[in-house]
């Protein structure tokens, strides 16, 4: 099955939300730069983790990939077929192969429908099963996600948060998709339940060869599930790396800061380390900073950072980062680096001249 072609190929995807104002005629006065020239690829059976803080555009990106909202520009190819610009009807057959799991298991299930209906509806609507066959299939699905066939006639409110998330997963699985986009699927759950759901998602991936785009703000969860991780900041991808690489030697200062901010559940290590605490808040996506969007909060920033947008540079072994002063690079990595095809159109075309100093004293 698996060949060289990616399952999902997103290139230079842009989603801006206009802000309108006016007395008689509304005209656009500003735009929210929610997703700004983002490219990513995903292969069959692979998990891409997408991390970033609230407002970084990760949820918008997910919805724009699935065409739940229309992208402003760019392309999304699924199994080689272009999705952008297709009508609702033309998207219908491809929708079966791409499913979504949501954060809030309380809000994403219709409270007036029974579990059997919720899970069975996709099958019925696509005309894939009916009658007894439908019921059997739904019961199989419920079994598979760790619920029981007896739950068929119950309502969502009778279930706990973790169980509801299982229902959501069963619904997403019903059409045997190839791709599941999971938007913060475990953020609303307790730790012990989180582990159950993460394990379930991994088992399902092995069994059905699913590819995941796994969105989360919890870096630990993302590391655990992802093959590759993309870090977003204010609508841009600032770094993409294989999981291990990102967590051990982050290139972008924002990745470094994010990792450093995660509290470590180990008292000794906590006493020893001096976390890098970023100042201030994420700037508004309505009027993002010039040059590198992170320069307003970056302890390593220099003049060039506010003037030129750094290109997304390929440092080899699948590691891409957009920074004028990349950190944690191996000797010689800079000389072999090239500008990636995924680099945003507006970015500078000069490679970083020298690596940044990882041990910059912070706390000023």
């Amino acid at each position, binding site marked *: 099955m698996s060949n060289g072609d990616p399952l999902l190929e997103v290139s230079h995807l842009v989603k801006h939300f206009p802000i309108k104002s006016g007395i008689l005629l509304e005209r656009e006065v500003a735009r929210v730069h929610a997703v700004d020239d983002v490219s990513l690829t995903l292969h069959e059976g692979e998990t891409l983790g997408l991390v970033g*803080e*609230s407002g970084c555009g990760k949820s918008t990106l997910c919805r724009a990939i699935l065409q739940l909202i229309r992208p402003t520009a760019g392309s999304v190819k699924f199994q080689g077929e272009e999705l952008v610009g297709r009508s609702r009807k033309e998207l219908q057959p491809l929708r079966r192969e791409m499913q979504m799991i949501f954060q809030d298991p309380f809000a994403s299930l219709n409270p007036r429908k029974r579990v059997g209906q919720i899970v069975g509806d996709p099958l019925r609507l696509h005309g894939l099963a009916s009658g007894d066959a439908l019921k059997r299939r739904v019961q199989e699905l419920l079994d598979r996600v760790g619920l029981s066939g007896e739950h068929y006639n119950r309502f969502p409110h009778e279930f*706990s948060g*973790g*169980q509801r998330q299982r229902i959501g997963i069963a619904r997403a699985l019903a059409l045997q998709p190839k791709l599941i986009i999971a938007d913060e699927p475990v953020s609303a759950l*307790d*730790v*012990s*339940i*989180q*582990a*159950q759901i*993460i*394990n379930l998602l*991994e088992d399902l991936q092995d069994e059905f060869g699913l590819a995941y785009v796994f969105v989360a*703000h*919890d*870096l*630990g*969860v993302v*590391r*655990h599930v992802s093959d590759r991780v993309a870090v977003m900041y204010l609508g841009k991808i600032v770094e993409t790396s294989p*999981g291990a690489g990102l*967590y051990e030697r982050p290139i972008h200062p924002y990745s470094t*800061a*994010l*990792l*450093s*901010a*995660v*509290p*470590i*559940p*180990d*008292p*000794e*290590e*906590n*006493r020893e380390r001096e*976390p890098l*605490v*970023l*100042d201030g*808040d*994420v700037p508004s996506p309505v009027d993002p900073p010039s040059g590198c969007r992170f320069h307003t909060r970056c302890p390593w920033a220099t003049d060039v950072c506010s003037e030129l947008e750094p290109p997304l540079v390929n440092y080899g072994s699948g590691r891409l980062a957009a920074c004028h002063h990349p950190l944690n690079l191996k000797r010689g990595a800079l000389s072999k680096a090239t500008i990636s095809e995924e680099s945003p159109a507006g970015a500078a075309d000069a490679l970083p001249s020298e690596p940044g100093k990882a041990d910059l004293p912070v706390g000023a």
Partner: protein
Amino acid sequence: MSPRATASGPLLSVKDLEVGFATEDGLLKAVDGVSFELARGEVLGIVGESGCGKSVTAQTVMGLTRSSNARISGSVEFNGADLIEASDDDLRKVRGESIAMIFQDPMTSLNPVYKVGKQIAEQILAHRDVSDKEARDRAIELLRDVGIPHPERRIDDYPYEYSGGMRQRAMVAMALSLEPEVLIADEPTTALDVTIQAQILTLIEQLNRDRDLAVVLITHDLGVVAEVADRVQVMYAGQVVERGTLDEIFYDPQHPYTWGLLGSLTRLDRPRPKRLPQIAGQPPSLLSPPGGCRFRPRCPHAFEQCAELPSLEGRLGKRSEHADRCWLQPKEKESRRSVDGRIGLGAPAA
């Protein structure tokens, strides 16, 4: 970490606290016999998952759970005065003045229709005989203390004009306005992004260090606890299942639920396991909790004796406050937990 002051007994002492709520389906016992002491300048972490009773415990200390359908018993002593039996008026004098509280969601914890400065000044005016101008000046000073830039301007903003992190800072400023002795922080960073969480935790640590402020930190996040707490108590289904110093809980945990919690974390500081150790099943209903040990239905180590509820007591035979509710022999626990989770891996026992 701040030294634990032991000068004149505990600042806050909770004994056998029970809180039940009458519901249509019966009595929901949210807190079932919780006791703890808090010394001056100490940070106590209360850890547990949703519904374990940690927030209800904290709110009951402040008398915030008082209502016609609440059944509260036990004692809460603050500086020797009982707060459970206290009149509403006496309690009101303690709230904000001696014990202050910040909450999980800074978005909803500030009243959207009043300016931030006014909400801070309101607390000062409720307790002190000062002019509006003095209260306002104090509010500006407080906002500056907690790191709000341009406080003399931002004081006239409405809460919606603040970011999430700034709102939590404003809540902290409000809590500090009367220089309380105890700060109860109920999941203060859960709704915030990691980089903002780091800012707020640093702020709480600073206040604890610089002002000798005692803190009760309620959280579900063991990482947060490890960062700021001196002592920890772990709650499950309305009861404390384990209590000890930070190191005792993290490096020598005694209760299988604590093992499960530590084990199911996705940790950045450890090698990635093939499969996450998980705790099976769901937490029990508090309307009809299981007999015996409450964790028994989910515990992989349960045996006959667990049908009887173990008391919370020191079982290690040493002069330590490390206590737990588990019948297993300490020796047996050591061997079981290393198989069960990834406890103590790579770090020395304290």
